[in-house]
């Protein structure tokens, strides 16, 4: 009896001990932080996949970079015409195709205007009205010309700005990596404002997403979802201040000025990274006026919030307000 009891207690001790250790031993997953595409990218996936994803993101970062001297878009904006990488050609074709299909509120060819505001952010001097009007005449995907081979030319003073599409496009490529390798049953890749939720979690539960409150005050709500891409657009902390006034970093290309949208945060859930990135910006710029049309879409789901604390949630989205 004595040794039976000893065995019983030892078994309990062993079970309790091992239970206490389980949380840090999830498969062969690992987490890495990569500084790419003007953000910090957190990758939780199989170790080998992380290496491949790191290499892909680094390549795409160079192709879509508008600001560094080593950036390909920066070089194209400077040279006006050049032989471009397959990545950049594919990216531009996809962005122009999206804007043609869903609307030109967000375009890759809006750099003439957006760069004025980026300069204002640095210099803390607002752009002149005449400069904005002039730049508005130099935006539009019709100013991008695909020549023979991979040569792309920019007409007039058109400039490219990848900002509203780049992270989503990069996440699409990350999904391709995960699909090809089949190493990761599930993965979470977060570029702060754009996220890829991949595969099925070990316990088959849905992914749990927290949406940050744009005023910086904690969480606005949570969404339980299957694998998908999601992107958030909003003011958050990326505003800039000139003469004591705060300006959002998202530029409304119909006016040439920072958006005056009455929406403060828009998150789009769908099965394409570049589409979720594009739509979150477009819906934010459009404001509440057109939100009902987006809430009815079968192609994507939306969780949007306005400046008065109202929520606009697509039917079927498992959203819980905090």
């Amino acid at each position, binding site marked *: *009896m*004595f040794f039976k*009891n*000893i065995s019983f*207690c*030892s078994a*309990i*001790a062993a079970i*309790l*001990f091992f239970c*206490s*250790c389980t*949380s840090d031993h999830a498969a062969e997953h690992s987490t*890495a*932080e*990569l*500084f790419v595409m*003007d*953000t*910090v990218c957190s990758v939780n996936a199989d170790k080998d996949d992380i290496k491949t994803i790191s290499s892909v993101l680094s390549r795409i970062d160079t192709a879509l970079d508008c600001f560094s001297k080593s950036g390909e878009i920066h070089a194209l904006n400077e040279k006006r015409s050049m032989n471009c990488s397959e990545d950049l050609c594919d990216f531009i074709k996809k962005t122009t195709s999206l804007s043609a299909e869903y609307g030109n509120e967000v375009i890759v060819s809006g750099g003439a205007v957006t760069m004025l505001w980026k300069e204002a*952010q*640095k210099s803390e001097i607002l752009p002149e009205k005449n400069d904005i009007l002039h730049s508005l005449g130099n935006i539009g995907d019709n100013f991008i010309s695909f020549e023979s081979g991979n040569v792309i030319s920019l007409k007039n003073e058109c400039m490219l700005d990848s900002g509203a599409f780049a992270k989503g496009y990069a996440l699409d490529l990350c999904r391709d990596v995960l699909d090809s390798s089949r190493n990761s049953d599930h993965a*979470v890749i*977060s570029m*702060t*404002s*754009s*996220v890829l*939720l991949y595969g099925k*979690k070990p316990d088959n539960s849905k*992914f*749990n*997403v*927290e*949406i*940050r*409150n*744009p005023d*910086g*005050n*904690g*969480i*606005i709500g*949570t969404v339980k979802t299957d694998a998908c891409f*999601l*992107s*958030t657009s*909003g003011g*958050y*902390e*990326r*505003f*800039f201040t000139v003469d004591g006034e705060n300006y959002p970093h998202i530029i409304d290309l119909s006016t040439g000025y920072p958006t005056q949208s009455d929406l403060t*945060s828009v*998150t789009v859930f769908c099965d394409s990274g570049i589409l979720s990135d594009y739509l979150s910006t477009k819906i934010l710029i459009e404001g509440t006026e057109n939100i009902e049309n987006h809430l009815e879409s079968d192609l994507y789901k939306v969780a949007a919030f306005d400046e008065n604390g109202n929520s606009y949630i697509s039917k079927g989205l498992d959203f819980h307000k905090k």
Partner: protein
Amino acid sequence: MKKFLNLKEAAVIAIILIICFLALFIVNSGKNGKYAVISSDGNEILRLELDKDRQNITVANAENIVFEVKDGAIFVTETDCHDKICLKTGAVSKNGQSIVCLPKKITVKIIGEDSEADVTIG
């Protein structure tokens, strides 16, 4: 009828249970509470308990960013970066929230036991 346990058996079982709970306590002691993990270029360089207020915290490679822990949250009080995004982020205290300084490749992440979120977006 024989007793289920005699005194000697009960003492041994009690000792085993005490050892068992001590082991549980030791293994889990590092997981309890909430922490701010400060990393430089993806490598953890400092871990701060959020239940202890501290001021003027700086880390290697980013001496010009000053952190403060107060009332269970961490925030940046000073930075020499131009865009000051880390400063504008304000105080973070919830699991999964973060502060990022891109120019200096510094991140602050909150980790703890109170959230089931897979990711925080925005």
